[in-house]
């Protein structure tokens, strides 16, 4: 039973119904990251998919950018409680990047420049659920928002959408990433409010 905050009425927005529980709407694009912003030059950028032993796929920026792209509009939900609706991106679907790749793995560890990692079940990255995005609202993605390229897996809390992404390691068993080792939820569904490891 919640305690009523004497004299608090709050500010409800028309879009509040579109928000997952415990979130509030923002029009800005706040930045959250654990350390300094890495600056990755395009001529040294690469993206690999591996299985922990062998590299299975590899792209440099040029070959990555020659893949077919999609534009998509999604809502973002950050575990720090802001949500931003209707953001427009351009990127390559992970279905495209995983085409013809056979694997027994059920989990993925997403790896970033700056050594950030996050774990996501592989099925959450497939079937048009996830992209490697390089353009935001028509502009090249700024470094503080994850440029040159970031993962976007918008149906999970935004920490899963790793910035400065450099690859994916396929895993037979789940292994926690950076925030998942520091008390945050392993899956992170905003609609079930899976913020912290103690959440069901």
């Amino acid at each position, binding site marked *: 039973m*919640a*305690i*009523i*905050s*004497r*004299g*608090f*009425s*709050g*500010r*409800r927005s028309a879009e509040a119904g579109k928000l997952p529980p*415990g979130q*509030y709407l*923002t*029009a*800005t*694009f*706040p*930045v*959250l*990251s*654990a*350390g*300094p*912003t*890495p600056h990755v030059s395009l001529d040294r950028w690469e993206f690999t998919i591996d299985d922990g032993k062998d590299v299975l796929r590899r792209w440099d920026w040029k070959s990555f950018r020659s893949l077919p792209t999609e534009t998509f509009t999604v809502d973002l939900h950050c575990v*720090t*409680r*802001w949500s931003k609706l209707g953001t427009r991106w351009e990127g390559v679907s992970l279905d495209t990047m995983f085409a013809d790749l056979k694997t027994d793995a059920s989990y993925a560890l997403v790896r970033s420049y*700056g*050594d950030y990692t996050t774990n996501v079940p592989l099925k959450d990255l497939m079937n048009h659920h996830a992209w490697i995005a390089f353009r935001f609202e028509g502009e090249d993605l700024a470094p*503080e928002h994850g440029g040159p390229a970031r993962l976007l897996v918008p149906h999970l809390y935004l920490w899963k959408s790793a910035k400065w992404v450099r690859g994916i390691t396929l895993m037979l068993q789940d292994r926690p990433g*950076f*925030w998942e*080792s*520091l*008390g945050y939820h392993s899956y992170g569904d905003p609609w079930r409010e899976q913020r*912290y490891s*103690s959440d069901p």
Partner: protein
Amino acid sequence: MWRVGEVVAVRDETATARTITLEIPDWPGHVAGQHVDVRLTASDGYSAVRSYSIASAPNSKRRVEITVERLPEGEVSPYLTRELAVGDRLELRGPIGGWFVWRPEQTEPIQLIAGGSGIVPLMAMIRSRAAAGGTAPFRLLYSVREPESVWYRDELHTLSDRDHSVSVSYAYTRATPKGWPRPPGRIDAALIASTTWPSKLTPTCYVCGPTSFVESAAGLLSASGNSSDKIRTERFGPTGDRR
């Protein structure tokens, strides 16, 4: 799990910031740098939750202090800084966070850099060190608009006066005290060089403040030779309403 805390004291830090002391009977203890989620609920059941860094050192009295800056457009901070009174009860969750933390076992030099209300988790680290009788050498570089916007001023002065291995430097961005040697301005490479630990001492750096401040300060620390894995950051956006 939501815990219930009772407000046992409120204290204004500046014209727009208030420290709230809560007593939480089932508080499990915390580490400096962690935060809490605070939930307000209206009489019709509508609720709003925001995160606030803990300002106080871990203590045996199950007390937690937060300092909240009143944001003119905020939904929660005007309530916490104006309406909330001693005796009120507040729901909170936490402590949360395991990355932007300082533990008394750490003995290496510590460099703290705060922008505005970003001082809160860094103050918890300074207080935690003092409470534990720690000897790790601490330096704080604290950027504020003007002298009137310094939080915890007397306490910082007393702590650094009593213990010379805690040193505090200020950067004023809009207005300086009379006779201040540096004109108003943001933290730059020269100020980093003259007030922070040399990178060859491999300090652990904690930078907290608004996004643009953290981007700039963390970038300057990197440029002066600190390795990225020694720089920990915590940022909040302009509408973040975080503290």
